[in-house]
């Protein structure tokens, strides 16, 4: 009877559905997934430059820097994973990408000497010892990177160490859109 056959298949279908959901959940954990970012204005701030102690504000990203976009990289000298992404940041800087650092909850001397020792990929570094700007940005943990356009809007975001793969997968699509718009 057809009813019987459907009844027999039903458990397998339902169980199959459950297992698929769980497997999706497992895979999800492994995938690099960054949902599209709703453009948000960069929060206003008033902090000092790490190396020169000069005051910096959000105009750093709109007026003082002359490029389509800037990469804002949140890091700290005590952050082990940040050391892993550091060489790639140096490479990006060499390729002409404007990177501004946000030094998060750190000791000023330690941070400055670390940059001197391992190389400085940043045009400027914002010193945020109390994590104020980080809080307004919604920083979850170091390292974290934001893409900010010339109008001072946050158009990209990634939580974790930057690698070439992630740069290609997450940030390049966004930067490409910017340059084509101008072109």
């Amino acid at each position, binding site marked *: 009877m057809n009813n019987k056959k459907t009844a027999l298949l039903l458990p397998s279908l339902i169980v199959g559905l459950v297992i698929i959901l*769980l497997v*999706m*959940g497992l895979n999800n*954990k492994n995938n690099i997934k960054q949902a599209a970012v709703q453009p948000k204005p960069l929060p206003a701030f008033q902090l000092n430059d790490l190396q020169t102690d000069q005051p910096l504000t959000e105009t750093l990203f709109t007026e003082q820097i002359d490029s389509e976009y800037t990469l804002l990289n949140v890091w700290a000298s005590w952050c082990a994973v940040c050391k892993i992404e550091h060489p790639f940041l140096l490479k990006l800087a060499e390729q002409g990408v404007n990177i501004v650092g946000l030094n998060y909850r750190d000791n000023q001397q330690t941070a400055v000497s670390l940059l001197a020792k391992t190389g400085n990929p940043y045009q400027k570094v914002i010193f945020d010892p109390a994590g104020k700007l980080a809080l307004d940005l919604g920083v979850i943990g170091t390292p974290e990177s934001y893409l900010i356009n010339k109008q001072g809007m946050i158009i990209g975001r990634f939580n974790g160490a930057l690698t070439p793969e992630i740069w290609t997968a997450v940030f390049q699509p966004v930067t490409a859109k910017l340059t084509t718009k101008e072109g």
Partner: protein
Amino acid sequence: MIPEIALFLLILTGFFALLGVLFPLLATVKNSPQLRKYTWPLTYGAAVSVTLSISLLAYSFLVDDFSVLYIAQHSNSQLPAFFKIAAVWGGHEGSLLFWVFSLALWAFAIAVINRRRKGQFISHVLVVMNLLILAFVLLTLFTSNPFLRLLPMPFEGRDLNPMLQDVGLIFHPPLLYLGYVGFSGVFAFAAAALCQPQSTFPWAKQSRGWALLAWTFLTAGIALGAWWAYYELGWGGWWFWDPVENASLLPWLTGTALLHSLTASEKRHALIRWSLLLAVFTFCLSILGTFVVRSGVLTSVHAFAVDPTKGLLLLLLLALCLVVPLTLFANNYGRFKVGRLRSFYSREVLFLALNSLFAVTTLTVLLGTFYPMIFDAFNLGKISVGAPYFNALFVPLTLLAFLLMGCAAFINWGKSKLDKKRLTGALILSLLAALLIFYLLTEGTDTLVILVLLSTSWVIITPFFKLHFIKRLFKNSAMTIAHTGIAITAIGAALNAHNSSEISSKMGPGTQVVLGELSIEYIETQWVIGPNYSAEQALLFITDQHNKDYQLTPQRRHYPVRVMNMSEPAIKSLWNKDIYITLGEKIDATDYAVRIQKRAFTNWIWLGTVLMIIGGLFALLKRFPPLSRRNGENDEQ
């Protein structure tokens, strides 16, 4: 050498289990009682073998054999001996071995209890048990081998995580595992019944015994976990709706429904299909729980190290344990002998309502626990589902359950007549009791507290209104004790949430602070050296309104090997509150941030769970007439 012997014993367990599957199946095919008899010694062999294996692992811990990777990761020569043994189940690999051990023990118990008439039905039950043992042996051997060597051998181990170095660790995991692995027994009975729906073997009756035992262990395990979290973690909470906690609650919910359903099945042949399904789902929820803890699919503070591949294998096992019994169920749906329903106003219908309510509650907790995962997998974003959600839904469902529980006193099997006098009496007395407790024990008004008090006093009072309650006191004692237990836990939980208060201040020698009727004075800071830690300890004197004096010493411990700092709270437990003090950060040379809490009625929460466990044990004891009488069961050939 010894770890290799232990590994060999584990492999041997697998072989015994494999044969324990083949022999009885062959015996059924060939209709040979001779072959069938071998199932028993094979099952015993598996149990003995794995017991020796895990004992050797424990021995290796005791002698500090750090050449074994698992031991090097979880132990340390300075660790006290009982923690070294507890470390056996403190990590992922060892706890899987414990799964095998628990499965084998339960199989052993089932075999022993049924050793007189080695019938076909029981042999099929043992087939299922041995299949499970084999599956977990393979899982352990191929993905989580605790006997792997570490070369070169380190001088010292990495130490057991200080948060786990507590008496709670010694008992919580074993009880928990024995509990939810124990539901494998009922699962096996159900699976055998699903294959042979016409069998006259009284599986419902025997299943109920196994379910009771597993349920009691699981209740004890969960309660101990909550208690341990309470006094170890430092913020005074005892249940966090964390995914791993929910994973243990889910089989408990269906297990409780199963207990009740089996009673109806045993006594009245009612709810047979419910009992079968609940048995299958309870054990499957246990496997789901293990999957959740080990695969990293849900974020939790409790989870073992994340490893998705282990997760996939567990999912496979889960799929098999669901698909096979459920398909058999669908196939044999009409063939189960089901009792007759005589009246709407009967305990059978009450239990149906109860089963349904528990099913909804289980599905709700399941929904809330997995919703963030599903949300994210479908790219809807990242959300969190936590205590506010669960409390909002779980509490009303619990209140409904209490309502039903109280009705049990007035509704009997078959057909009952509504006795208006008794019912009114019970309602009035419950109302009075609730008002009395409210007036005496609570401060302030809260609708939730009132509702909880009303429904729990209903639960506690109604058994006394049962017909001939004194004559039947012994007969109903287990139920009454267990129901009173959950009611008391509910009262404790509600008052704990509503009546607790706290204060945080900067305190140093000589500072005094007031919290309600308590006056707390900081006397001095002391220094303590423990076996594997050093600590700063605050000595505090507390005086209450009756001028009773208490002394509390919260600590901040420093564990050098793992370089961890831990705050060890100090607790003074009184009948109506706990004084709970945590020593926080050091603010300056002499002062600390001290957090003082009055946790209301915490002991009632634990008391309630103890009563539930006693109720379970009582119900078990009642089932043990002299063992010689146990084998009069009709057994099908």
